[in-house]
């Protein structure tokens, strides 16, 4: 758990996560951040409480079928569905990410996108894209275009740009208007989770990745 996270998720994302209306890739970002950030976790659970009111105060609770309690007891008698295996938490990837990767960092199937930068796209629904990014220590992040909203969270190492310095657990929220040049700290290779709600533009920009200096 990182005690010194400075860059948090916004209330609208936390409320949408509580309401269950985010695309899967954004849910993954929020769950990963909450695993590291008690500040946002407490806020998200407060938004769950709002959901509790909405459910509990519903104007017209609907009658259940006559046999529904009996049917439910029969369901219960069948036993609990197999619980998920709990992965260890003292690792680079928090549990929700490990469930998508199938393990910790060593299990990530990286694909090179040039300049030493690698990415791994995670299997989510297509409304939004989640991917892990590997940026070698001291290297700049290639521009992949901010068509929509993009959230980038640091999992290992750190990066800096015109906005600020971002370390483990910090989330940078970028929209179309942000022009920035993230550079990984020299001390360690940087691994980030990046989520965007627009289709990826990486491929269109591939030629630019081979320029000696990236226009970001």
């Amino acid at each position, binding site marked *: 758990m990182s005690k010194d996270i400075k860059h948090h998720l*916004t*209330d*609208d994302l936390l*409320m*949408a996560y*509580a*309401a*269950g*209306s*985010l695309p*899967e890739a*954004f*849910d993954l970002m929020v*769950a*990963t951040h*909450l*695993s590291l950030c*008690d500040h946002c*976790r*407490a*806020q998200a*659970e*407060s*938004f*769950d*409480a*709002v*959901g*509790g*009111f*909405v*459910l*509990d*105060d*519903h*104007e*017209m*609770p*609907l009658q*259940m*079928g*006559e046999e*529904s*309690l*009996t*049917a*439910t*007891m*029969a*369901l*219960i*008698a069948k036993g609990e*569905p197999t619980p998920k295996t*709990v992965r260890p*938490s003292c690792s680079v990837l*928090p*549990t*929700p990410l490990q469930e*998508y990767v199938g393990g910790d960092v060593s299990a990530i199937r990286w694909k090179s996108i040039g300049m030493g930068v690698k990415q791994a796209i995670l299997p989510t*629904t297509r409304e939004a894209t989640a991917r892990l990014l590997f940026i070698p220590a001291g290297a700049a992040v290639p521009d992949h275009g901010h068509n929509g909203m993009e959230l980038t969270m640091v999992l290992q190492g750190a990066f800096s740009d015109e906005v600020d310095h971002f370390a483990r657990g910090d989330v940078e929220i970028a929209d179309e208007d942000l022009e920035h040049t993230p550079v990984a700290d020299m001390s360690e290779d940087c691994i980030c989770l990046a989520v965007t709600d627009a289709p990826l533009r990486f491929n269109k920009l591939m030629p630019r990745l081979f320029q000696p200096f990236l226009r970001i």
Partner: protein
Amino acid sequence: MFTETDIATLDTPSAEPDFVPSKFAPKSVRGKSVNGSNNSCDVRQEWVLHVRRIRDEKDQLAFAELFRHFAPRVKAFLIKSGSDATTAEECAQEVMATLWHKAHLFDPSRATVATWVFTIARNKRIDVLRKQRRPEPEDLGWGPEAEPDQDDVIALQQETAQLRDAMAALPDAQRELIQKAYFGDLSHREIASQTGLPLGTIKSRIRLALDRLRHAMN
């Protein structure tokens, strides 16, 4: 096995009134029969004890009372969220079965029973209606001594009731938008203007509970 007849033998009066008061009404008569009080805090505490009884004694009567209160609400919530009646009925049963199986995971110093049931119902909706996985944060788990302090439980339950009162005072239009958001009808961009809710006290309370769990883990 539990039957409808068993419910009739409960020595409580009719567990459900025929109506439910207006949205977010602070003074609720629901659950009155459970402990003979119309104080909403006490009622909520009582639901906590119901879950404990399920956890500790696999108490089917306690479950039946919870079922009669929450299952119709879960069903209504799912239909409002776009489910057909048959699916909503099945899902409500599955949500209540999950409540039984996961009773040992319920932490009343972090959530009311209504909040907890909501999270199970929401995840069911994402799974069944949106056919999407629901990533959840790392579980903080229960250490050997992580059973919450009773004072913390009462404080959280009361502060949640106060938040509910504060929400009851919101203008109708804002309350309806919040409901729409939780039925899954607003995107996070549309939600952006709806988040000025008075969550401060309950958030601090939950934060304390999280600190306790972190402490128990170390």
